Every structure is written in C-alpha cells, then in structure tokens.
C-alpha cells in the first residue's frame, strides 16, 4: 500500500453510500468527474476521513508508438484492473463498488435481483448474472410496472424493498459480457421513489423461447432458501438476513419455474401479482 501511496495522486474524493464510506483517488482529476456516472444510487459525497475501501485510478493516457499505456485500478492494495480500455476500468470499478456496498451496507439486506413495483407491492426476480434478470425487469417495466432495480433488491428490516434505480445494464444481442446503460425512461417506464412490501417473488431462469412459464408455489421455508441464495451478506450477517427474508416470505407468494420469452413471462407475472 505504501508503494501505491508514493505514486503521486492529484485528486481525491470521499463518498458514502448505505453507510459504507469509500474513497477514490486519481492521477487525473478528469477521471473523478467521469466516474460519477458509475456511482451507485444513494451515493453522496462525504467529508474526508477514514474509509472502508480506497480506490486508486491511474489513467495511462494516449498510447505512444510501440508503447501500450495501461489504465490501472486498485482497491486498497489489490489491483482490480490493468487494461488499455478506460471504460473497462470504470466498469470494473462500478462492479466492485456495488458489491462492496451490498456487502457492507448497514440496516439493509441486498439481494441480487430485479425489482419492480406493481399495484402497491413489489415483484422480486432474484437471479445470477446472465439469468435474464434485466431482460425480464425491462419487460415488466414496458408492461407498466414501476422500476426499482435491475441489480439489487434493497430490503429493510421490515422486509420492504427500497428503490435502487440505476440505469438498466442491458447486454447486446448474443449475450455479450459487455453491458450498456439504458435509462428506464427508454423503456417507457419510471423510477420508484418509495419503499414497498414484497407481494411476489419469481424464481425463474430463461430456458428457451418455447418454454411457457408454469410456476409452482414454494413454501415459506423453501422460498427463504431461494432468496438466501442471492443474499449478498448471507455469510456475514446470517441472522439478520434470515429474519429479513422471513418477513418477505410471510407477506409474499414465491413462485418457481423456468420461463421462455420475457414479454410473455412478464404478462403472466403481472397477472399473478394483481
């Protein structure tokens, strides 16, 4: 870390998000301006002080003849990225920061899930990356639901879900790992502002176009396990997580089953959520 500290940093900022303090320093003030678009919802600037995670960004600048200049990203003393593509560096920053906040957030339980609001209740779609979570969330929004998140369901101790309305991260056709950010308004939707109790949990994975969604209902216990599988602080705060999940499943229906096209599944989901 000392070696890193000696590199010479010209700009730095401290932020706080869901109770997690983190800092970012760079050798180029412009990079700090640029990274604001990668900060998670609910992040605000904070007074300088001790942080839980310190990001260090060194931009390589223009490549010379025969010389490749790498952009470097560190989290504390660990190198997270070494790339000639600056955007890739910022995406890595965003992804690591989101996970840091999701794991360290106080008084909130983060589940990896898409969330929409429908008629005063939230619909949760837990799932790993590449499970079609964002696609289904986008279709639910197109069908009239209010957008909460395509990344995390942020639950309070009462089991209510709070908005985490970042732009949707849409993958290009063909399932590329690279994502582009799309504002919810582009899907004809709007972002939520208030927390909601959970009414429906949809445990589902895309299994091909011909698959019709015929879910089965899960018991409260099995529903809790299905949610636990996507709870970021499951190992670090299991008692709190289980208590929160219990509140969710006591007030919600949990459905599980493979699905086909997102548009068809979205219609069925909203019918059941009504």
């Amino acid at each position: 870390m000392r070696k890193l500290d000696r590199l010479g940093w010209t700009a730095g900022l401290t932020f706080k998000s869901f109770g997690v303090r983190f800092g970012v320093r760079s050798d180029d003030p412009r990079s700090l301006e640029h990274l604001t678009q990668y900060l998670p919802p609910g992040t605000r600037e904070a007074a300088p002080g001790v942080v839980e995670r310190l990001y260090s960004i060194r931009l390589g600048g223009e490549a010379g003849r025969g010389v490749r200049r790498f952009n470097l990203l560190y989290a504390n003393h660990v190198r997270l990225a070494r790339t000639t593509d600056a955007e890739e560096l910022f995406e890595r920053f965003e992804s690591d920061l989101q996970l840091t906040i999701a794991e360290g957030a106080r008084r909130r339980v983060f589940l990896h899930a898409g969330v929409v609001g429908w008629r005063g209740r939230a619909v949760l779609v837990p799932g790993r990356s590449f499970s079609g979570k964002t696609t289904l969330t986008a279709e639910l929004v197109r069908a009239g639901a209010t957008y909460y998140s395509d990344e995390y369901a942020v639950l309070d101790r009462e089991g209510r879900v709070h908005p985490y309305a970042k732009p949707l991260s849409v993958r290009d056709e063909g399932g590329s790992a690279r994502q582009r950010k799309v504002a919810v308004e582009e899907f004809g939707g709007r972002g939520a502002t208030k927390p909601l109790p959970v009414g429906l949990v949809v445990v589902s994975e895309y299994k091909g176009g011909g698959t019709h969604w015929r879910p089965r209902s899960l018991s409260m216990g099995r529903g809790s396990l299905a949610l636990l599988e996507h709870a970021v602080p499951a190992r670090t705060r299991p008692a709190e997580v289980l208590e929160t999940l219990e509140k969710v499943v006591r007030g919600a229906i949990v459905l599980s089953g493979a699905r086909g096209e997102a548009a068809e599944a979205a219609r069925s989901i909203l019918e059941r959520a009504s």
Partner: protein
Amino acid sequence: MAERTVPANPLARVDGVVVRELPDEVLIYDLDTHKAVCLNSTAAEVWRLCDGRRTASDIRKMLEKSAKGAVPEELVWLALEQLDKDKLLVERVSRPAALVGVSRREMIRKVGLGAAIALPVVVSLIAPTAAQAGGSGCVATGGACNVGGDCCSNSCLNNVCA
C-alpha cells in the same frame, strides 16, 4: 449402510446455528459450514424432540400422540439420519439392529404405507459468498473454463469463456 455404534438418544444441536421458526417449517443456518437447511413439519418436529434423553422409540410415541395415528419407527430414523447428515445433531446416531441393512428406499416405501404424518424432508443449500450472490460467481469472457456452466455467458470454447 455401515452399522454405527453410538446409542440413539439424539440431541439437537443448538450451538453455532441460527434458527428461524416458520409456520410449518424450521430454517436452520449452520454458522460453521454456512449451510442453510429447511426442515418440513415432520423433520422439524423430530428435531425439536431430540433432547438427548428420548430414544427414537420415545420420539415415535410423541409423534403418534400429536398426529393421533400410527407412525412407523422407520419414519423417525429417516428424519434422524437426514438431521445427522446435515450435522444438526450433537452426536451421530445408530440404527437399531432390526433396521441395519434396510435401504432408505425400502424405509420410505414402508413409511409411505402406514404413516399418519408426512415424510420428513430436509432441503439444504450452501449460502453464497458475497461475490457469488452478487452475480460474479461465474467466469467472465476470456477466463479459463471447463464447461459452459462455468462461464457467465454459458459458453466455453476451447477452455476459454466466450
């Protein structure tokens, strides 16, 4: 199945676990192994009755009393062995001589014919690490892989994630 030697006065493990009681189930989280277990009503009832003094036969009688009907001893053993497997008992339990060598399938068949209560069911999962839950439990494009399922893209070509 190999015969075990420890006498069967099962004692439910209460240290190092987080327990949540649901209306018809019990959720147990093992803080050592990070395994979360869901017991259905029958398995939960057996688990609650494991106080270290009662034998399997005593537990069967208690179950018969609450179910108001016959409960075969095999059902208790099915539950105990599942609890044992998930390390929810303080000590391992051993079947009585009459049941040694009887397959689990045979026991289920017998229980299914004569029980007044549901078969014990225990479902478990290993809790994810933060990275796994956060969606990065898969290998990104360009990373090494063996099968498609290793990759976020679900596509592994020549041991590299597409």
